[in-house]
């Protein structure tokens, strides 16, 4: 075991060196006393060690894979950055880290404990995420900042980094075992600053689920027979730290429809008094109005709940009925013999210090009148106590009303923001799913898409894609790609009108003129778009002003295209990752992008994947699959826009490449150590 510890700290040192050596080229190291670093390690690792001790072997494997992938990612990044440094364009390479930080920020859960102590500004590390969350986002980059601006910016960034480092010193990390629906489990490293949304995103990457909004992390407490879903904005580490050492609590990853039900069917909560039939027929427009009224005003409106609930009496197994009322300020009850007027209400409980949990099987455990119980308790309370409040409802609907109502009162607007983020995520993913399912060999590619998306979400003016969302979710489940695999895409289809005329119409951009010729002697995949009925999908996110380029084929040199074998063949034989690679390679020097994309990854990565150098064209859509088709043509271009050419993390090919910096040796040593440990068991 000690081996592992030693290895870990070595590993950290290694990574540190790497980042430092890079950093010194750009920025002189900050004056941080090295002693500080030592301290950091020890603090950071006590927890890590603790949690490592509790791991089982298979968990260790998973963790190992994570680490390997992360190390590789870092290496790639380093390589990319070095490359970037060599390029003469000062705007891209000299500009300081915050934008980079953003680009790797939320969804990429960096379990890497490495970077904390590295003391240079260019460290490719987690602190960025903390910076993004604790400080206002960095000002948008000008296309051409003046020298002073750059300097000022750099200075500010240095300071920020220094601050981050200081914070980083105390960051706590936990290794968390998450139980999947199918009984298997995944192990993740979660750091203190990560919220549940980030962890979910991480799990999405690992599980290839459909990413719909119902996916949740839940906490169970078998001793008290409780469970609750974590809210997406909550930090995960904090509630987990409240668990006792011998706790049997678990973290589950499952779909929980009730999590965001209030946004899908607000009428059931805000108009619950109306009869059910009327509620069923409610129009989408009216739902939206309800959401507007209750979640988008100056103040969040809590559903107007009132009703008789059973309250478990302290320390007894008897239940007493009381007339309860939910208000934004807490739960109240009407004392005996008093009216329901506000001033007579007695406060039962306020929400500042309690969470709401669902109770399981309370009928047998506490002799509850029904099994529809919920519980309010301080998150730290883990055993039976008089400070836990047990309430019992007559039916499931009432229980959900109350639990949701309490969540709205407690979390307010965060709940709605969480939903919007989750919804966006689901929409993006469903687009991606359709595109990427054939590329099952390269499961981790979704991450760049997601990454590119999140900064947008932060800006957060989302046209409500609510009506379209269900569609897109369905699409996520659809397996359109298989068909693409099985059916050889039909060669030039007479049904398609000659594409060239339609192209200029759609894409107003003149500079790409040469490309008009390409499609002409080529089956016209991208053009298909124009003939089809308006696609049901491209959800709001897709119809940005940049839309036109979507319909252009990827811009690799024409020669490459001309010499390509007929598409059907290549379709079947080629593993899809090349799309990604091809896209990256063909990308012109990164455009001055507000998101500030790091330079493309080094080519070897792609050759490593065994892809033939000329990227195959996107598969022409099978006409039969009308519904699925619109997505296919979008694929290449869509990713051009969305995917920053950031080095893909955790791509398999990079495994071999990763060793370059000496890290490979290191990793193998680590693996040996792990195996050794396993042997000891």
């Amino acid at each position, binding site marked *: 075991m000690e081996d592992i510890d030693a290895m870990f700290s070595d590993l950290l040192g290694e990574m540190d060196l790497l980042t430092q050596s890079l950093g010194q080229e750009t920025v002189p190291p*900050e*004056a*941080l*006393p090295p002693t*500080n670093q030592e301290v950091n390690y020890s603090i950071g690792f006590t927890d890590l060690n603790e949690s490592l001790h509790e791991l089982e072997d298979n968990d260790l494997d998973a963790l190992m894979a994570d680490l390997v992938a992360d190390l590789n990612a870092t290496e790639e990044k380093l390589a990319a950055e070095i490359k970037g440094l060599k390029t003469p364009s000062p705007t891209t390479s000299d500009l300081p880290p915050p934008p980079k930080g953003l680009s790797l920020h939320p969804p990429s859960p960096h379990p890497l404990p490495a970077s904390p102590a590295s003391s240079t500004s260019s460290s490719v590390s987690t602190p960025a995420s903390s910076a993004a969350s604790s*400080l*206002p986002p960095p000002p948008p980059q000008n296309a051409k900042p003046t020298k002073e601006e750059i300097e000022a910016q750099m*200075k*500010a960034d240095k*300071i*920020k980094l*220094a*601050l981050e480092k*200081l914070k980083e010193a105390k960051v706590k990390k936990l290794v968390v075992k998450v139980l999947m629906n199918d009984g298997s489990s995944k192990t993740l490293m979660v750091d203190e600053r990560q919220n549940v949304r980030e962890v979910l995103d991480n799990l999405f990457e690992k599980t290839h689920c459909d990413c719909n909004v119902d996916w949740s992390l839940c906490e169970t407490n078998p001793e008290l027979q409780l469970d609750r879903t974590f809210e997406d904005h909550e930090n995960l580490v904090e509630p987990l730290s*409240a668990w*006792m050492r011998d706790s049997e609590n678990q973290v589950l990853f499952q779909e929980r429809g009730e999590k965001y039900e209030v946004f899908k069917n607000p009428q059931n909560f805000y108009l619950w*008094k109306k009869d059910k039939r*009327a509620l069923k027929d409610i129009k989408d*427009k*009216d739902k939206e*109005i309800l959401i*507007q*009224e209750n979640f988008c*005003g*100056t*103040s*969040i*409106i*809590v559903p*107007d709940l009132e009703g008789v609930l059973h309250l478990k009496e302290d320390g007894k197994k008897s239940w007493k009925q009381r007339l309860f009322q939910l*208000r*934004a*300020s*807490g739960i*109240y009850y009407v004392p005996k013999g008093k*009216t*329901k*007027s*506000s*001033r007579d*209400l007695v*406060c039962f409980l*306020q929400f*500042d*210090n309690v969470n709401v949990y669902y109770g399981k099987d309370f009928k047998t455990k506490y002799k509850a009148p029904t099994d529809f119980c919920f519980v309010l308790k*301080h*998150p*730290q*309370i*883990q*055993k039976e*106590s*008089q*400070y*836990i409040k047990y309430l019992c409802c007559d039916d499931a609907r009432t229980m959900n009303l109350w639990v949701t109502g309490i969540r709205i009162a407690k979390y307010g607007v965060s709940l709605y923001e969480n939903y919007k983020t989750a919804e966006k995520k689901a929409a993006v993913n469903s687009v991606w799913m359709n595109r990427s399912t054939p590329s099952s060999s390269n499961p981790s590619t979704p991450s760049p898409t997601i990454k590119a998306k999140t900064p947008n979400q932060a800006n957060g003016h989302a046209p409500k894609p609510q009506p379209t969302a269900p569609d897109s979710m369905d699409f996520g489940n659809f397996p359109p790609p298989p068909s693409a695999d099985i059916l050889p895409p039909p060669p030039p289809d007479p049904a398609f009108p000659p594409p060239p005329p339609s192209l200029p119409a759609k894409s107003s951009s003149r500079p790409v003129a040469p490309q008009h010729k390409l499609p002409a002697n080529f089956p016209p995949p991208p053009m298909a778009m124009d003939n089809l009925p308006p696609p049901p999908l491209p959800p709001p996110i897709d119809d940005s002003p940049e839309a036109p380029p979507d319909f252009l084929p990827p811009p690799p040199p024409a020669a490459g295209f001309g010499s390509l074998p007929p598409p059907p063949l290549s379709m079947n034989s080629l593993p899809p990752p090349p799309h990604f690679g091809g896209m990256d390679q063909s990308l012109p020097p990164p455009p001055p992008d507000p998101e500030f994309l790091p330079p493309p990854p080094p080519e070897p990565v792609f050759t490593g994947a065994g892809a033939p150098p000329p990227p195959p064209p996107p598969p022409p859509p099978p006409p039969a699959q009308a519904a699925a088709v619109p997505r296919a043509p979008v694929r290449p271009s869509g990713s051009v826009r969305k995917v920053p050419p950031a080095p893909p993390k955790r791509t398999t090919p990079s495994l071999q490449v990763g060793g370059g910096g000496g890290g490979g040796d290191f990793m193998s040593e680590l693996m040996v150590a792990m195996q050794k440990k396993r042997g000891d068991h």
Partner: protein
Amino acid sequence: MEKKIRRFNTSKRGKQGADIMAAWDLSVTVEDLGPDTPPVSLSVTSDLHVGGVILKLVEKTQIKRDWSDHALWWEQKQCWLLRTAWSLEKYGIHADARLHFMPQHKPLKLGLPNGITLRLHACYSSPVFQTVMHICRMLNIRHPEELSLLRPIEEKKKKKDKDSTEEIYDLTEVPLSSASRPCLYNGMPAHFADSPQMEAVYKMLSVTQPPPAPEVIAKQYRPASVVDKAHINGRWLDSSRCLMQQGIQENDRLWLRFKYFTFYDIEPKYDVVRLTQLYEQARWAILLEDIDCTEEEMMLFGALQYHISKVSQSEPQMLSSSAAMDDLESALQSLEVKMEGESSSASEMLENMTAPELNDYLKIFRPKRLTLKGYKQYWFKFQDTSISYFKSKEESIGEPIQQINLKGCEVAPDVNMAAQKFLIRLLIPAPEGMNEVYLRCENEQQYAQWMAGCRLASKGKSLADNSYQSEIQSIHSFLAMQKTNSSSHGNAPANDESINTHSLVSPRYHKKYKAKQLTPRILDAYQNVAQLSLTDAVMRFIQVWQALPDFGLSYIVVRFKGSRKDEVLGIAPNRLIRIDLGVGDVVKTWRYNNMKQWNVNWDIRQMAIEFEGNVNIAFSCVTADCKIVHEFIGGYIFMSTRSREKSDVLNEELFHKLTGGHEAL
């Protein structure tokens, strides 16, 4: 007196009019000549247009001045003759018409939501909707459509009221032109920058008033029932008619209030006055129990008021700037200075970063332990968010007897100044439940320090947090409050240090609690809001107000068709509710977005509304004219259209269409 003269004149004029065929005499009272001056008689023909009449009139008075604001008011018909191109015939004016020539803008006394009275020139000739727009523009309140004017509640005249000579802020000097197109100067309309007096007026408008003395609250009219609350809504002026038409005379008093409770696009940066007045209206609604709330909510409102009054005194002008950005910038700058300063700065910085501690002898008592020992003294150390204690100071280097992490715990004060009791009651969460711990401090100073530390720690903040000092301050000032309350029984708000807590809650609680009983409860609520900035605190107050279940309801007593008893109709921004007066319960709710149409039968004064699903309701209004109800509903529907319209310009026409009724057409 005036009326008599007029009547005399008309009879005389009637005779003359009969004598002359083509030209006849029109008598016009010119207000500027004084009330005792007889009307000016003009010889006119029926085809003379109104402009011509005015011209003749002005020539005849031989006074040189700017008459441009003047217009003719036809007394019998209660209307202005504003179309100067119309002939007398077209207006239907004959020799018996009693016309008055007077300015369209006249002084009006305007009671603001904050209880202060302004005197300003308001337009008496345009629809009230426009008049309000002008007033709001002058006062720098955005979204005037949310406000309106109402007749004040008559104050019972008590002879012993000597201090009734209230201060009136005069704004009549503001040129009319500047009110129509205000340019901002220093964040306020330029006309407020003219003189120190004007600036004082703006300060009054934009800074919250100090808490009123408890007697002032007690003296004010408080509605006792829903029916009482319904009566106030009968006082709203008709937005589609002008002030003169509604019998408002020069120098009359009206109230300016927020009428429609959908506050669109509140932007603290531009809405200083709007936000302040909205807060004041909300505060008075709470204090006078215009809207019901629970005791806990009342304590929170009290705490917020206390905080707001305290902060607005310390930062009198909330000059708008994006606070968050500034904070960051200044933080960065100061850091930068430090880093650039000396080379040793880094270690220095680290020193600054290491959290301060508290160390002292305190007494602890744990009721759970069932020991009769009571309080036992230990050496306590407060570090980060934890308290640890040791047998003595000397042993504090070693392992503590116990360490208690306060994060997430509940902190409550138990203080009695007279008895010199300074207890901190902690409820510390643990897996087994909450552990109760009492810490006993020796004196005020020690108590304030440790209490502040506990408070911050319970929220996960350490002593290094920059709110620590202000937390100590607020504890001190609350202790001071208790002192004064116990000595002098609740006399008017003395100085800023101590506010009588009775000033912060409704009179119901004056009876229920003594001021010193109230203090700890308000302090309790206060700890959650103590760190808010002025704007945030004001916003929070408004949000909590808006989150009350009864928020936004305007009540009208109505009689539903087919029903024999009076019931109450509640009009909310998104719905109508029917309240049974006997039970006080909401019987039925109708939402506007299910509404197909609504009609007013002006002859029988009945409203009929049709909702989707063949739901029809009809009622007549008891405590307010049905025009008021009609305008409320139409007004709310107008308000809901605002988000869809992108332009900033107020669609006045639509408002009148929705609220005007047949009279407007």
